[in-house]
């Protein structure tokens, strides 16, 4: 049986890897390095096998809309209201919060398919 207490420190802070990926134009999500299960963002150990060895892999960038909200007042410098934030289920499994492009849309439906766009370190589904 595996000693789940060995090496419980992730090799690098998860947010750094995720954000560094965006800077390179890549959308990454976490998987277990031992059993390969896709893991929720923020997991520090594997839900399935308990391993603390996680890895970041590239997502195909396809997500289905689980929920969204529209801000009618802007809290983001340089972004005009209204703007939308969505919760997407990546095709690989994990749920990811991201900006949702409002342009050309007046109605969203549950499960709507969206594609990730990564530009200048910013992630938007549209």
């Amino acid at each position, binding site marked *: 049986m595996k000693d789940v207490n060995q090496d419980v420190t992730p090799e690098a802070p998860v947010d750094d890897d995720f954000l560094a990926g965006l800077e390179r134009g890549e959308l990454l999500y976490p998987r277990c390095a031992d059993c390969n299960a896709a893991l929720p963002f923020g997991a520090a150990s594997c839900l399935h096998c308990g391993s603390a060895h996680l890895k970041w892999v590239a997502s195909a960038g396809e997500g289905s809309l689980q929920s*969204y909200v529209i801000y009618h007042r802007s809290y983001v410098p340089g972004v005009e209201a209204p703007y939308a934030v969505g919760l997407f289920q990546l095709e690989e499994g994990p749920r990811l*919060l991201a900006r949702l492009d409002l342009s050309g849309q007046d109605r969203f439906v549950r499960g709507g398919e969206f594609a990730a766009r990564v530009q200048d370190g910013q992630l938007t589904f549209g």
Partner: protein
Amino acid sequence: MASRGKARGAIVGLGQSALSRKPIGTARQLAVAAVRAAIADSGLKHGEIDGLLINRSPLVPHDVLPLKLQDDLQLTKLRLLTSIEGEGSSAVQMIQYAALAIEAGMATNVVCVFSDDPVGVATGGQAFSPCLEISGIPGWEARCGLHGAAGAYALAAREYLWHYGLDDDALGWVAVSDRAWAQRNPDAFLHKPLTIDDYRQSPWVVEPFRVLDCAYPVNGAIAVVVSAAGAAANISERPVYLYGMGQGHRGFLGFATPGEPLTGAAIAGRGAFAMAGASPADVTACQFYEAFSFTTLLALEEYGLCGPGEAAAFVRSGHTAPDGRLPCNTGGGHLSGFYLQGMTPVAEAVIQARRQGGPRQLENPDLMLVTGNGGRLDYHAALLVGPAPSIA
């Protein structure tokens, strides 16, 4: 199994500071006023208080309401003192820990206080803008622009509305029900009659939430004194007994795993009902933590008072409003009464159990569910309370 409805403790005093939309003092000063009022209300002597539990808003730093509150109050013989870290579930948690400590012999009379002064000279965005962590990626909410508790709760609300195929009016009927109660409560802050049409005209905050879906913050403090159930009748003319207590902490993971509880509220409810030897069908009224309208719908379902997806129709039919079959948020709740976090529902339950509700007094306050909810649906605590030493 515990005998049905045997009380595990009692609330023997309730006190509050002034409540206001204007600055009326620091949270620390208001806390002193509320504690003094609660002790006076209990009839206990100052020196008979040997426990102090403190609940500050999760939005303020620790030193706003420090343990030094003890010195302000000159409570010099404490055997129990701590600050509770359950965010919106803290007020209910304080009462639970007080009752447990008393049962264990660690204290005799414990005062529990919440205090906050969120409404400043320039009101509005200040208390609104901090992000709640829900993405799992530190700092990501701010980069996405998901600001405020309202944004995080609105995201859960939209998922809920979609899951059950409900329209946005489902939220509005909660606001209408709360307002109907507030009209009968002179201490509520919003009294104007409210129809569903008025609700639809209310400005958006974060769609699907309008202004009227959001709690109405005030400055103020509320405190209660908790004592042993067996001693309560000798202290207070109208003690409020605690039959059941539970907590549940789980986060909101969406609807991906059918059959699992959606949030920790379901776990908290099971614990409280098991301790009380009661079931949801026995509940005569509810005082929910409802910082946003949506949380009342979810709580009705999570605590087993309505089936999954049925709360909206239940509220729309008037069952939670005055003369309804399950009165909820009977002082106007967080939306139309006032928002002092977990102490708003606690105080209303005490008032109802003591039959001090005036025009809003319930005929049957015999078994009330009182809830706390913190984080983004992360942290839950529940009490079952009533006016008799055991459930009628």
